[in-house]
């Protein structure tokens, strides 16, 4: 057997100076030759540690083997057997902390690029122009309502539909996909990929109801009364956090949710062809260090900003964003200001933000999160001239559903109480999973929760009898 190449095939990308001026996808994807070469690096080790590293248990060595054998339809079948959203996961999963982190090859060299191969398989199927529909079990006659069509809801809906339950998927916005549509930008996750995978879930028989705000248009209690046997809540963490410092309501200061929703969901970057406007700032400051902060900064750049700062109160090593996204942002010219935290915003006489007074920070002892606690350096204040600010501090669950549902317990942080294994809430017949339970996390962990809850709901419905 030939010696294994310890380097992975690198991902072709748009050049930084080119992509900073457009919203097209940054990573271009492997071609057939690159995919085959990368697949051939897999040593097909018997331990299959990668499968254990995947929150939805994708049979990773098997689908990679199918690529090697040139049997792409089989690769699709294996992948979609466990994961209904491979085009999405191949792009936005943090594989480096999951399947790829535990890859046997990682001990000696670069782990197999599982995510890139997953994307290759999904994109191959999309290019064929038609999707193979999996076998759907005989109808059970049971009805399940899934609330929220983000990653958790789509996964739960797909799994429940495949085993023969009648699923209605309620979505508050005018399109399905949740954070995949409103949050993650086009250049990282093209919206036609999301809609293709939503269409796949619909093709399994899932009835999608848009414009339905559960908690307002209808309540969970009404849904349960209305002949549904079970409810899965995948309503996400949609409520933006602010800094709560003076001047935060000046014009030009956005929550990341608003900035990204206008840009991605409403396509404000195509204004006035699309009707939703956005302020195209020249000097933009993004507060926060997660993926959402990176996405906001890179959107601001593409909207035409001259300078975009990411202001983060800890140092580079504590950045919660994926390494790949930080590198992409740095390559594109985003300026990182570490150990910096805004004290207050300054506005002009018309109410527009013109600057941020910031503190320098230093790191103290580790806090509850295990990261070193940022401490304000007194007297270190300095001014940063900006005309746009995006607050990307994270999100908490929207209280609309919990507050209108009797008997559903929530924590002090506003998350819904549900057991981690199955997603059962304190209310009989109601499951929950994804960000609404964990607080803002990843697409794949939400999908894992949706999958586990679907299995638990199926078991519950089986016990109920016909």
């Amino acid at each position, binding site marked *: 057997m030939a010696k294994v190449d310890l380097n992975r095939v690198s991902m072709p990308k748009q050049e930084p100076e080119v992509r900073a001026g457009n919203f097209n996808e940054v990573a271009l994807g492997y071609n057939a030759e690159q995919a085959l070469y990368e697949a051939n690096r897999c040593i097909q080790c018997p331990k299959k540690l990668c499968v254990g590293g995947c929150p939805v248990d994708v049979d990773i060595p098997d689908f990679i083997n199918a690529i090697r054998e040139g049997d792409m339809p089989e690769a699709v079948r294996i992948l979609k057997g466990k994961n209904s959203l491979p085009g999405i996961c191949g792009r936005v999963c943090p594989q480096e902390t999951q399947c790829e982190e535990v890859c046997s090859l990682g001990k000696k060299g670069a782990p197999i690029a599982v995510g890139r191969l997953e994307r290759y398989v999904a994109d191959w199927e999309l290019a064929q122009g038609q999707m193979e529909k999996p076998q759907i079990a005989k109808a059970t006659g049971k009805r399940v309502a899934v609330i929220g069509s983000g990653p958790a809801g789509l996964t739960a809906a797909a799994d429940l539909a495949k085993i023969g339950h009648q699923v209605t998927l309620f979505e508050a916005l005018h399109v399905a996909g949740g954070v995949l549509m409103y949050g993650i930008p086009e250049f990282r996750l093209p919206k036609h990929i999301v809609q293709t995978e939503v269409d796949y879930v619909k093709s399994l028989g899932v009835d999608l109801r848009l414009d339905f705000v559960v908690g307002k248009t209808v309540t969970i209690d009404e849904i349960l009364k209305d002949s549904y046997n079970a409810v899965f809540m995948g309503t996400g963490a949609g409520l933006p956090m602010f800094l709560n410092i003076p001047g935060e*309501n000046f014009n030009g200061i956005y929550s990341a949710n608003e900035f990204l929703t206008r840009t991605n969901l409403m396509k404000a970057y195509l204004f006035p062809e699309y*009707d939703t406007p956005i302020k195209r700032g020249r000097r933009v400051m993004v507060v926060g260090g997660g993926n959402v902060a990176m996405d906001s900064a890179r959107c601001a750049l593409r909207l035409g900003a001259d300078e975009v700062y990411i202001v983060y109160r800890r140092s580079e090593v504590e950045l919660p964003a994926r390494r790949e996204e930080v590198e992409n942002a740095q390559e594109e010219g985003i300026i990182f200001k570490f150990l910096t935290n805004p004290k207050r915003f300054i506005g002009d006489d018309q*109410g527009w933000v013109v600057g941020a007074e910031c503190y320098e920070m230093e790191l103290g002892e580790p806090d509850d999160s295990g990261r070193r606690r940022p401490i304000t350096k007194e007297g270190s204040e300095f001014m940063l001239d900006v005309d746009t600010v995006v607050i990307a501090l994270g999100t908490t669950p929207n209280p609309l559903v919990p507050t209108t549902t009797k008997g559903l317990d929530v924590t002090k942080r506003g998350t819904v109480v549900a057991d981690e294994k199955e997603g059962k809430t304190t209310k009989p017949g109601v499951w929950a999973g994804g960000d609404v339970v964990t607080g803002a996390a990843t697409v794949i962990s939400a999908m894992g929760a949706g999958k586990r809850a679907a299995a638990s709901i199926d078991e519950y419905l089986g016990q109920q009898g016909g």
Partner: protein
Amino acid sequence: MYKIMSRETLVPNNHLFKIEAPAVARKACAGQFVVIMIDDKGERIPLTIADWDREEGSITIVFMEVGVTTRKLAQLKTGDSIANFIGPLGEPSHIEKFGTVVCVGGGVGVAPIFPIARALKEAGNKIISIIGTRSKDLLFWEDRVREVSDSLTVTTDDGSYGRKALVTEPLKELLEGAEKIDRVVAIGPAIMMKFCAKTTEPFAVPTTVSLNPIMVDGTGMCGCCRVEVGGETKFTCVDGPEFDGHLVDWDLLFARQRIYIDEEKHAMECACGEVASHG
């Protein structure tokens, strides 16, 4: 898609649409609003609910042509559809028996004040209504408001109909009069609501206003509609839209309503250009 069951131009630039939306109609209450989107390139805009018919499954909205979206909406005909219609959103009006309530409606705000006055009337309150517009040709629903009011004063800025006054003048006279006023509800342009609140403040009469900032989702997700009430930041879409008028930071509201004034102008010019080139 949501069908336009009927439409009517009430007065120049102000239109009434009855939209088929049974799920929204089932739940609608006075004081709530809907978010609409005309087509898949459209903007999401909030409109206050003016009336509903649960049996028919319809919601009535009344809007004024102010920007690209409302102008496009105004061009639609009975039988046409709009892409999205979401609601009912926001908290319903607080309805209970207060005693004597003054309901003030200004301009297009006459429409949303109507169901609130009706609900307050049904709850056993005495309703004194004041509705005002710039001139006679902009006045609508005088009859409907009169029907649910114990008394009604109509004002116009130019004196072309009713009393020549701003709505705050009869409001002030009522507050100074012998009758005890237990509550005031004012809906209209932000500037009118501000001055209604300023008028009632010295009399310490609780005054509810319905705020109308820019929104996107309308469900608490974006924070575009944040306002300051009593020094605290609130999201109008989920915490409101009704707030204590004495505690609202009006200057902040005015400033935030103007965020996209340049973009709106640009969009209007583009939209007009399109009409010209097609016409």
